[in-house]
């Protein structure tokens, strides 16, 4: 109970802080929309071609928007030593990780919720089927689980904007490939059964990286 109270307090604090300025959300949303619009122009009005490239475009958009937001995730904690403030509080390092992950997850889902309708409109594809919603949710969890850990690692480095993508993107390649493949199948009207192997990969990735990140986070933030 105490664990979840601390987790919610950290997540709420992050979201409240972001709502005050909307600095990160506005730049990430604008970035995501620009990528979608540019790709839409690049691939023209060919519906068949669009259907083929759409999953890749969507996940490239989410990946780069995610990197942009995760780079910022720990910056407020470094300013005025707030991470030290969390570390001297009587809460586990795991609660700090889950709290930061939860706020990043909400943040990413908000970005996706804004980007997806625009994507649907420009690419003339329905991405609001239950299959696609499940794939998006599962893949985003894995993405954020790894991203939060690497964001904490990168924030102590000078070139954090470069370090995070270099460390993070190779690790999330499996979940990206699985998400793109599952999206392709879902857009082609395939059943849950056809997507199950990809969903299992995403699910396994989520579990493994949630557990690993949860366990090693304390070592990452302690000096």
């Amino acid at each position: 109970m105490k664990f979840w109270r601390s987790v919610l307090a950290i997540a709420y604090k992050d979201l409240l802080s972001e709502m005050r300025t909307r600095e990160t959300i506005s730049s990430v949303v604008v970035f995501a929309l620009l990528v979608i619009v540019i790709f839409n122009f690049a691939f023209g009005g060919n519906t068949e071609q669009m259907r083929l490239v759409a999953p890749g475009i969507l996940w490239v958009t989410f990946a780069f928007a995610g990197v942009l937001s995760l780079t910022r995730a720990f910056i407020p904690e470094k300013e005025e030593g707030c991470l030290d403030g969390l570390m001297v509080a009587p809460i586990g390092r795991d609660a700090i990780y889950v709290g930061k992950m939860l706020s990043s997850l909400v943040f990413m889902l908000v970005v996706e919720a804004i980007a997806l309708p625009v994507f649907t409109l420009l690419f003339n594809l329905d991405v609001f089927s239950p299959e696609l919603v499940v794939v998006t949710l599962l893949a985003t969890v894995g993405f954020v689980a790894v991203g939060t850990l690497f964001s904490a690692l990168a924030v102590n480095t000078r070139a954090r904007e470069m370090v995070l993508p270099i460390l993070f993107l190779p690790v999330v390649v499996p979940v990206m490939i699985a998400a793109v493949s599952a999206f392709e199948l879902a857009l082609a009207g395939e059943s849950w059964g056809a997507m199950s192997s990809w969903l299992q990969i995403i699910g396994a990735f989520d579990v493994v990286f949630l557990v690993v990140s949860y366990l090693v986070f304390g070592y990452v933030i302690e000096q």
Partner: protein
Amino acid sequence: MTEGNTAAARPMLRTEGLGRSFGHHRALDAVDLQVESGECLAVFGPNGAGKTTLIKVLATIMRPSSGRVMVAGLDLRDSADSIRRRIGVVTHQTFLYDRLTAYENLEFYSRLYDVPGHRERIRDLIDRVGMTARLHDRVDTLSRGMQQRVTLARSVLHDPDILLLDEPEAALDRQAVATLWELLRSEAGRRRTVLLVTHNLERGLELCDRLVILDGGRIVHRSSRVAASFEELREAYAKTTERSA
């Protein structure tokens, strides 16, 4: 003079052979300290002496490389969470989130510390540090001195037994300093145990019961307030800083 000769059965804070290395550099080297309940220990030392590292290790922000830390009889290695509940920390940084108001910051920390009746507690502390009028202002609109006042309220929010203070008076005016020492040092008739890191010899001598000088990660001088005069302390400190220069 041997430390802790006024010892009660169990010191509030004790370190044994405490060491912390960064690569080949030993920031703390076999530091033995003992602070009794209600006592104030001042730690002086030149830049790079290991004072901030000592505070960070005692505050559980950094892991020690060697040695042992005991707080109220609890070993830091197995009881870090319980120890954190009993410690309040003030460092060079405020631990306050710029975009939140002073009240929101204190409310956030009171949730982490499970402070009962936190609304009243926050209002009481903020009143004592003279910040009631700015309670609902964002921290980034406050002056550094005002932020420091909120920081001091944050550090005693959970009524800790021990305070680890690293230059707590930075950015405060003289009037605020007096009020704030009263707040930090005791509450409800109970004296807190304080470990104070400062460059201000006069202030350390005035406030603390015992004094140590740290240099190169080792304790090179120990004395009590009763035994030491300001001149003696200044001489010992000057020798240390000359040596390290």
